[in-house]
C-alpha cells in the first residue's frame, strides 16, 4: 500500500516535465492500487480472527522516538472507510480533471497527482499509526496535501481565500492536538500509544478532562463541527470534486477516528465510566451541528456548498452516536447500549462516506459538463445526463435517511440507541436525550426537503441556461466511480447485517465489551434487531431486505394496477399556461422552494432581501424585478467577525508605533539579545 502511494507520488513528480496527462493517469492508477491494497488489508483484518493487532515497526529516522504502525480493529475499520472512497475517487479523478480544466498545464496536473497520493497515503497511515509522532506527522501531511488540492483547481482569488481560511483553521486545530499529545508524551517519556496509555492512567480527573477538551477542540476543527465549521463550506467546494468527496467523505472521518482513539483508548480511565462532562458535551455539539448544518444547507444554492453543509450535519449525527456511547460506556445500566450507540456512529461513518462521496462525484459530473455550480442556473439535466441523475438520486435518498438505503439503517440505529438511552436516565438527563432524538428526527426531515430541492431544481424541469441545455453525459470512468459507491449504498442498505460483522472488531477493541453483531443482529445477517436488555425482551427488529423487497413489490403492484386501470390512450397536448408559452422561468426555483423554511427559521438565518423594480413610467407596468437575498451564518457573524475586528483593532495600535525602518526592527532584536545575554551572564 505504501509502495503504491509512494510510487504514485514519485511518478507524478518524475513525469511532470514530460507529460502531465500521463502523470495524472499513472498517479491515479497508483492511488487506486494503494486503495485496493488498503481495502484488502483491512477486510482481512476485520474478518479474520477477532482481537488481532498487526504491529509493524518503522525505520528509525529520529534518534529520540521509535516509530511503528499498529492496526487493530478500529484502525482497520477506518482504513476500510478511507480505501472505499479512495478507490472511487482514483477511478473518477483523471477523467474529471481532464474534462473540468482541459487547459491545465502538466506541472499542475502532476502536482494534483502528487498531492492526491500524499493525501491518501497520509490518511491511511494516520489510521494505522502506532505512536503519537506518526499520527501527528500524517495529520499534518493530510492537511498540507489537501490544502494543495484545494488551491489547485482554479486560479482565482476565492480558492486562495478558501485555502487560506482552511489552512489557518486546520493549524489552529493541530496546535490544540499538539498540546494534548505532547502533554501525554512528556509524561510517558515515549511516543508509542502503549506508553501513552500507561501514562494516562496516572492522570488526575481535571487534567484528564482538560486534555480531552483540547483534543476535542482539535479534532472538531477538522471534523467541521459547529461553530468550528466555517472553513468547510468554503474549502470543500473549491477542491476538485473527487477531492471534495475525499475531504467530506473521509478526511472528516479521520478526525472522528482520532477522537475515538484518543478518548476511548488513550485517555480512558482503567475502570469506571468516562467523566460526566465528556459525553454530554459531545452529544450537545453533535446535535447542534446536525440541526444547524442541515438548516444552512437548505439555503445554499451552490451544489457543492450545499453538500459541504450536509457534511456538517452528518458529522453531527455521528457525534450524537459517539457522545451517547461515551455517556453510557461502563455505566451500570448502560451495558450493551453503549455498543449500540458506537455501532450506529461507526456505521454512519461508512454510510456517510459512501453516499456523500457519491453525491460529490455526481455534483462533479454536473460541474465538469456545465461549469456551473449554482443550481438556479441548471435544471433539466435528468434527460441529458441520465446516469448521473439516477446515481445522484440514489445518493439523495440515502442521505435523506429513506429506506431501503444505507442512510436509513444507521439513523435508525442511532434512534434505537437514543431512545434506549432515554429510558436509562431519569429526570432532565433523559429529557435531553429525548430532545436530541427529536432534533435528529427534524434533521432527517429537513435533509429530505433539502435534497428534494437539490435534485428537483438541478435535474428536473427545464434547463435555465444554455450550458445546462447542452450538457452531455459524463465519460464512463466517472460513471464507474459513482457506480461503485452507489452499489455500496444499496448493499449497506439492503444487507446491513453483513456490515455488523465488520463492526465487531472495532467495537470490541474500543469498548472491551461485546462486538456489534452480538447486540445488534440477533437473527441472521439480514435482520437488524437491537437487544437492549440481556434477555432481548424490549429489543426492536427490522429487516432491511424485507423492507426493500416490500418496496419493490409495492411499486410493481402499483405499476400493474395502473396498467389495468388505463383505458383511454394517452393524449399529447401542450400544457395550459393561460395562453403563454411555458418557459423555464415557470419552474420552481431553489430560492422559492426553500422560502417557507426560511420564514420559519428566520430567527436563525437573519435573512436579508432586496427587491428592486424597474418600471416603465407608471407603477403598473413592471419591466424587470431584481431580487437579491442572502442569509448569514450565525457562528460566522457572531464569533468570527468579532474576533476579526478585535485583531484588526490591535494591529492598528501596533501599526501606529512602527517606523517602517528595517534597521530599527533588527536593532530591537539585537538589543533584546544583549539584554537577555547580560541577564543570564549576571545570573551566573
Amino acid at each position, binding site marked *: 500500500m505504501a509502495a503504491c502511494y509512494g510510487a504514485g507520488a514519485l511518478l507524478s513528480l518524475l513525469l511532470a516535465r514530460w507529460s502531465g496527462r500521463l502523470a495524472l493517469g499513472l498517479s491515479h492508477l497508483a492511488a487506486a492500487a494503494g486503495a485496493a491494497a488498503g481495502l484488502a488489508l483491512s477486510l482481512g483484518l476485520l474478518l479474520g480472527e477477532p482481537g488481532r493487532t498487526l504491529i509493524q515497526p518503522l525505520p528509525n529516522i529520529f*534518534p529520540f522516538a521509535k516509530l511503528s504502525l499498529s492496526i487493530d480493529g478500529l484502525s482497520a475499520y477506518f482504513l476500510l472507510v478511507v480505501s472505499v472512497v479512495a478507490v472511487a475517487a482514483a477511478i473518477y479523478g483523471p477523467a474529471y480533471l481532464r474534462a473540468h480544466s482541459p487547459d491545465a498545464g502538466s506541472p499542475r496536473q502532476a502536482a494534483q497527482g502528487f498531492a492526491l497520493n500524499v493525501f491518501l497515503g497520509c490518511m491511511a497511515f494516520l489510521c494505522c499509526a502506532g505512536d503519537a509522532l506518526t499520527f501527528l506527522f500524517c495529520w499534518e501531511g493530510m492537511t498540507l496535501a489537501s490544502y494543495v488540492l484545494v488551491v489547485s483547481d482554479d486560479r482565482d482569488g476565492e480558492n486562495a481565500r478558501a485555502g487560506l481560511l482552511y489552512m489557518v483553521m486546520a493549524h489552529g486545530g493541530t496546535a490544540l492536538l499538539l498540546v494534548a499529545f505532547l502533554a501525554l508524551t512528556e509524561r510517558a517519556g515515549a511516543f508509542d500509544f502503549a506508553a501513552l496509555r500507561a501514562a494516562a492512567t496516572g492522570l488526575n480527573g481535571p487534567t484528564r478532562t482538560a486534555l480531552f477538551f483540547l483534543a476535542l477542540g482539535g479534532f472538531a476543527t477538522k471534523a467541521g463541527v459547529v461553530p468550528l465549521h466555517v472553513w468547510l463550506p468554503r474549502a470543500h467546494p473549491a477542491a476538485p470534486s473527487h477531492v471534495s468527496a475525499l475531504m467530506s467523505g473521509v478526511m472528516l472521518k479521520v478526525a472522528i477516528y482520532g477522537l475515538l482513539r484518543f478518548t476511548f483508548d488513550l485517555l480512558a480511565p482503567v475502570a469506571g465510566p468516562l467523566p460526566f462532562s465528556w459525553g454530554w458535551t459531545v452529544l450537545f455539539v453533535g446535535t447542534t451541528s446536525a440541526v444547524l448544518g442541515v438548516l444552512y444547507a437548505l439555503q445554499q444554492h451552490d451544489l457543492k456548498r450545499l453538500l459541504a453543509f450536509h457534511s456538517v450535519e452528518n458529522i453531527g449525527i455521528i457525534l450524537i452516536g459517539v457522545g451517547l456511547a461515551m455517556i453510557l460506556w461502563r455505566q451500570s445500566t448502560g451495558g450493551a447500549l453503549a455498543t449500540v450507540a458506537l455501532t450506529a456512529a461507526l456505521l454512519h461513518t461508512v454510510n456517510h462516506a459512501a453516499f456523500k462521496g457519491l453525491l460529490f462525484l455526481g455534483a462533479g459530473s454536473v460541474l465538469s459538463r456545465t461549469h456551473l455550480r449554482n443550481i438556479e442556473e441548471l435544471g433539466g439535466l435528468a434527460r441529458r445526463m441520465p446516469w448521473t441523475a439516477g446515481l445522484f438520486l440514489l445518493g439523495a435518498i440515502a442521505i435523506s435517511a429513506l429506506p431501503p438505503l444505507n442512510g436509513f439503517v444507521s439513523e435508525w440505529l442511532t434512534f434505537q440507541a437514543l431512545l434506549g438511552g432515554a429510558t436509562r436516565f431519569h429526570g432532565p438527563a433523559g429529557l435531553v436525550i429525548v430532545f436530541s432524538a427529536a432534533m435528529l428526527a427534524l434533521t432527517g426531515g429537513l435533509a429530505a426537503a433539502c435534497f428534494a430541492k437539490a435534485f428537483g431544481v438541478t435535474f428536473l424541469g427545464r434547463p435555465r441556461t444554455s450550458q445546462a441545455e447542452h450538457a452531455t453525459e459524463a465519460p464512463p470512468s466517472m460513471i464507474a466511480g459513482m457506480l461503485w459507491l452507489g452499489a455500496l449504498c444499496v448493499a449497506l442498505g439492503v444487507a446491513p447485517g453483513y456490515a455488523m460483522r465488520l463492526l465487531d472488531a472495532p467495537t470490541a477493541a474500543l469498548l472491551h465489551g461485546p462486538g456489534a453483531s452480538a447486540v445488534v443482529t440477533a437473527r441472521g445477517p439480514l435482520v437488524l434487531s437491537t437487544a437492549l436488555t440481556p434477555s432481548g425482551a424490549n429489543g426492536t427488529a427490522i429487516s432491511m431486505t424485507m423492507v426493500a423487497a416490500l418496496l419493490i413489490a409495492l411499486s410493481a403492484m402499483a405499476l400493474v394496477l395502473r396498467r389495468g386501470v388505463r383505458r383511454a390512450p394517452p393524449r399529447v397536448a401542450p400544457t395550459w399556461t393561460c395562453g403563454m408559452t411555458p418557459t423555464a422561468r415557470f419552474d420552481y426555483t431553489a430560492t422559492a422552494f426553500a422560502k417557507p423554511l426560511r420564514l420559519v427559521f428566520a430567527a436563525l438565518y437573519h435573512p436579508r432581501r432586496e427587491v428592486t423594480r424597474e418600471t416603465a413610467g407608471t407603477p403598473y407596468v413592471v419591466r424587470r424585478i431584481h431580487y437579491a437575498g442572502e442569509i448569514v451564518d450565525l457562528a460566522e457573524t457572531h464569533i468570527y467577525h468579532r474576533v476579526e475586528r478585535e485583531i484588526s483593532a490591535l494591529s492598528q495600535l501596533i501599526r501606529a508605533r512602527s*517606523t*517602517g525602518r*528595517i*534597521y530599527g526592527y*533588527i536593532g530591537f532584536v*539585537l538589543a533584546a539579545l544583549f539584554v537577555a545575554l547580560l541577564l543570564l*551572564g549576571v545570573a551566573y
Partner: protein
Amino acid sequence: MIADPLSQLVMLGSSGMLLTALIVLWRKGIPAYVTAYRWQSWLLAAITATVGYYGHDPQLYWVAAVLLALKGIAIPALLATMQRRFGAEREATPYVNTETSLAIAGALVLFAYVIARPWMTITTLPTRQGLPLALALLFVSLLIVVSRKKAMTQVIGFLMLENAIALLAAVGTYGVPLLVEFGVFLDALMGFLVMQIFVYHIHETFDTIDVEELTRLRH
C-alpha cells in the same frame, strides 16, 4: 598558550571567520562582501571537518562537504549573479560610518568574551576557545544587518549570522547530529531564497536595493 592542535586550529579558523565579517564593515563594494562570505564559509567547512577529524566523527565530514557545496559554492554564486544584475551599487553612506562601525565591532567582541566567560568555565571541550569568537561573529553579523542600507549587504549579514550559529553549534557541542544540521541547512536555504525574491522585488519597485526606500511603503 595551548599546545593542542585541535584547539589551535579551531581558534585560527574562528578568528578568520570573524575577520571576514569585519571586512564587510570595512569595505564598501558588494563584490568584496561576496568574496568575504565565500572565505568565511570555506573556513566554517574546514573547522567542521577538523572537529570531525579530531573527534573521530565521520558524519561531520558529510556536514562539511554539504557546507562547502552549499555555502561555499552555491550561495556565493547566486549572490554574484544578483550583484551583477544590480550593477555597481555601493554601500556609500551606511547608517553608521566605517570607523564607528569598527569601533562598535571591537566593543562587541569584548562583550562576547565577557558573555562567554561562565560558559568557558563549565565546558572542558578542546574547542571551547572558539566559543567567544563564534558569539562575537554573531554580534558583528547583526551589526552588519542593522547598520547597512543595501538589501544585498543585509542578506550577506544574515548569511553570516547563520554561519555564526553553525560555528557555535560545531564548537559548542563538538558537532551536532546530521539530521539537525540538515534541518538548519534547509532553513537557511529557504530563508536565502525568500530574501533573494524580496531583493529582486525591492529592486523592481524602487530601482535600487536601498532599504531606506522601504519606509515609503508606510503611509
